[in-house]
């Protein structure tokens, strides 16, 4: 392990780390917005749920490497080529979890809201959504972590992308394990760190579940 090289390249690490978070962040946000819309559609019209999930399932099965390299011939070397697949892979996770979240609202609560005179929209936003939050956050957690992992793969597109994956690919090309680890270990820390943060957020967002958590722990 070449410590001198590591110390020399800490600013590069910073650059790539920022790039990594940036690329992942865009995908998660855009993916969430699109998925949320799809999910609401799926909830309002149950018949669309099956097809939406089925298409997402198939897209999910396509190996990520393939989508990245295949898109180059269509959208060139650009952020689009990177983000489209990343966003696409979040659909399955988000839609499933968002719908499950809304589904988890007990029927009695819905009836109570109706009984209190809530309109459908008010009920959706003021009653169902807050109760759906735990599963939605669980979806955000899964999607964020897997997106962080996928960003490393974008390193196959060349030097301008890849986030921390850039070091993994370059280290491999030059036969330089120090550099490979320089990229691999921070990417793991980033993914695990994000996971831990989401767990905390989950706990904060669902104080009423704390008692149940006590039982499960």
């Amino acid at each position, binding site marked *: 392990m070449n410590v001198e090289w590591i110390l020399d390249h800490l600013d590069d690490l910073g650059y790539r780390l920022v790039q990594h978070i940036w690329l992942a962040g865009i995908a998660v946000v855009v993916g969430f917005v699109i998925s949320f819309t799809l999910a609401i559609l799926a909830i309002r019209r149950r018949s669309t749920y099956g097809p939406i999930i089925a298409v997402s399932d198939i897209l999910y099965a396509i*190996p990520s490497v393939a989508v990245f390299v295949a898109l180059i011939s269509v959208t060139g070397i650009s952020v689009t080529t990177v983000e489209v697949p990343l966003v696409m892979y979040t659909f399955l996770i988000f839609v499933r979890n968002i719908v499950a979240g809304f589904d988890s609202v007990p029927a009695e609560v819905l009836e109570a809201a109706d009984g209190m005179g809530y309109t459908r929209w008010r009920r959706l936003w003021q009653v169902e959504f807050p109760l759906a939050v735990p*599963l939605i956050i669980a979806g955000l957690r899964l999607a964020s972590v897997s997106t962080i992992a996928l960003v490393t793969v974008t390193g196959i597109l060349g030097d301008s992308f890849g986030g921390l994956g850039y070091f993994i690919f370059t280290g491999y090309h030059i036969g330089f*394990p120090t550099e490979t680890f320089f990229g*691999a270990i921070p990417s793991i820390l980033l993914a*695990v760190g994000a*996971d831990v943060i989401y767990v905390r957020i989950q706990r904060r967002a669902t104080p009423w579940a704390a008692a149940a958590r006590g039982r*499960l722990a």
Partner: protein
Amino acid sequence: MSLLNQALAWLSDPAHWQGSVGIPNRLFEHVLLAGASLAIATLIGLSIGVWIGHTGRHTTIAINSANFGRALPSLAAIAIAQPFTVAIDPDLGFAVYPTIIGMIVLAVPPILVNAYAGVAGVDRDLVEAGRGMGMRERQLLTSVELPLAVPVIAAGMRSAAVQIIATSTLGAIFGFGGLGRYVIDGYARQDNGQIWGGVILVAGLAIATELAFVLLQRRLTPRGLRLQQPRSGAEPEPERELAAA
């Protein structure tokens, strides 16, 4: 010529079905190595998960390491394993061993977590009834807890299998064989037919695997439980519930 046509043209070329780089051989490579990894991962995940679920000890450590394994970026896992495996065996250790390690590392968490949740989630009354009937611990495990946990465990294995297929495609970047090679080699040669032919093959394999496990799940579920399952066909998803915990 649209991408789909190019892919179909590539797939229908008989030359691509022969030889060591032909589709049947690559498919065999892929299934063999993926299967081996799944077997090893099941051995590890199942034994640990069932034991934790049955005894109720060390749950936090297990769940946390499972979370860690789930968050682990696959490419990083393969890349980290490589220098070590190369030192052991420069030939296979270059691409095959690190990819297998990556596959195992990523497949264990879903199996472990589901095994734990499945066994721990068995109705305690049933377990007590078993004890009351004089069953010993091992009997309890094999006659009561495991059969009831099967749907959940199978769901975990299904998740693991899909993960394995995805990871093996990544391994192709480093030279791992299998169907992922068509994508990587096709990219090197800018042969769209090969890239998308490879995509169809891998996606097809992933979907076929998932369907196979769905079938397996149904088969292994004791009839009593199958009758109980909600009509919507929703499968138990303990991962999500645990994730919310």
